[in-house]
């Protein structure tokens, strides 16, 4: 476990009710890295993200963001510490317009001028959103919603982006675009990404490191290229 990790998770236990879903998870995300958490349905990937962003209270363990323990920090404060979570199903507010959704991402910021700049950058980044500014969230296509959710997180200029299943229900071409975009963002702004995916191939294609989860445990952590190319590992944990 490297000391200079942006996000470090130690012995994290969490779940719903009495039965834990996560059993003593250890995880480390270096700054500027794209880390993909992959695994089968029910491995605990979404639970992990929900615990990291404070939606679920961990039963045990520590979550350290940039040297700071996040225990007891309320959910709505995390975004102020540079953590953005794009939830599964994207969490676009259907009743609000595209513009309102995006502005919502920067409302917490004191620096109004930079929030406005960030908004403009997102519109430049996602052309389709700029064209549909006044449309309501529920009028967008699946790909546009993913852009909106991603863009809304970026308006807050996060240091760490938690992405839950960005490929869910999207056409392969759109998935490829989004993955390429993550890579570009990392390269240009130094954004750190923790990506949870069932779409193992595309996740590992963009990630620097891969973490394999099964039944609530981390069963393998290795550079993404190795996971991708090591047939034994792939067969054992990923089933292809």
């Amino acid at each position: 476990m490297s000391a200079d990790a942006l996000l470090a998770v130690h012995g994290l236990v969490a779940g719903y009710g009495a039965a834990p879903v996560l059993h003593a998870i250890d995880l480390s995300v270096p700054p500027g890295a794209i880390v993909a958490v992959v695994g089968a349905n029910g491995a605990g990937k979404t639970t992990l993200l929900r615990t990291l962003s404070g939606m679920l209270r961990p039963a045990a363990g520590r979550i350290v963001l940039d040297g700071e323990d996040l225990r007891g920090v309320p959910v709505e404060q995390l975004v102020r510490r540079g953590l953005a979570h794009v939830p599964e199903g994207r969490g676009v507010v259907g009743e609000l317009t595209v513009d309102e959704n995006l502005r919502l991402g920067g409302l917490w910021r004191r620096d109004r001028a930079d929030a406005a700049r960030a908004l403009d950058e997102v519109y430049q980044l996602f052309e389709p959103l700029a064209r549909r500014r006044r449309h309501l969230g529920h009028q967008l296509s699946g790909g546009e919603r993913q852009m909106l959710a991603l863009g809304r997180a970026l308006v807050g200029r996060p240091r760490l982006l938690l992405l839950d299943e960005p490929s869910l229900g999207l056409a392969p071409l759109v998935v490829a675009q989004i993955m390429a975009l993550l890579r570009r963002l990392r390269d240009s702004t130094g954004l750190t990404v923790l990506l949870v995916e069932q779409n193992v191939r595309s996740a590992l294609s963009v990630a620097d490191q891969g973490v394999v989860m099964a039944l609530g445990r981390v069963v393998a952590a290795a550079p993404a290229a190795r996971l991708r190319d090591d047939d034994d590992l792939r067969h054992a944990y990923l089933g292809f």
Partner: protein
Amino acid sequence: MDRFVFLTLDGLSRGSVYAASALALVLIWRAARIVNFAQGAMAVAAAYVAHSVTSATGSYWLGFLAAVVAGLLLGALVDVAVMRLVDHRSPLNPVIVALGLVLLIQAVLGMVYGNEYRPAETPFRRTALSVGGVAVLSPFDLFVFATIAVVVVGLAWIFTRTAVGLRMRAAAFAPEVSRLLGVNVGGMLTLGWALASGVGALAAMLVVPTELGLHPHAMDLVFVSAFTAAVVGGLDSPPGAVVGGLLVGLLLSYVSGYVGSDLTPLAVLALLLAVLLVRPAGLFAPVAARQV
């Protein structure tokens, strides 16, 4: 024809108050999925505060201000001290709790002020002005229109043009996502309760002088009318609440003018039932229905 004009204007004046009350109901319904059955009682409490302040200071306007402030505070208090603690898994629970508040508030008012009608002050005369020999509106009616217009426009401005309004809407529609985006959802909910209750208090200040006067039960029937207005417009639609309020006001004015004022309660009930049975989502239901 003269009579029709008079009844229409009178109905619109009354209806604008129902519109404000209905708007207050819709605000809380959208934010918390609770129909605040205690709204009438809370508003009467605020009106009593105004009564006390006006009696003590001799100034109607200080009392008016006090009512609005009392309404805001009472709304926030009810949310923080009561509604927040209720188990919302069954929609029955908040309704029952609100009714408990009705009993409590009305009883406390009865203990403090007594259960008799007290005359309510108005800042302007209530005798109708004539235009070309036709009795139209009283100065008080104009005051009602102006106040409600300010409230409606003000609320619309807050909700659609300000950051706080955006936060409140987001918190109501998607509480979990809003928290992830740094919105203090609980605080927005309390603010919503305060605003709604403040609007309700304002409505009470405007409607009580036109009825029998100040009484712990003064808003019972008004509440039923406001609820009907909110249902007519669709509980999820603020513009619908305004239109619904005006419609209910007109209906009541015509019924009481052409049929008999004793029949207005029955007319409200009939309208409420008709709308619920024919178009339960209201006449102005938003195009995309929310999944509840």
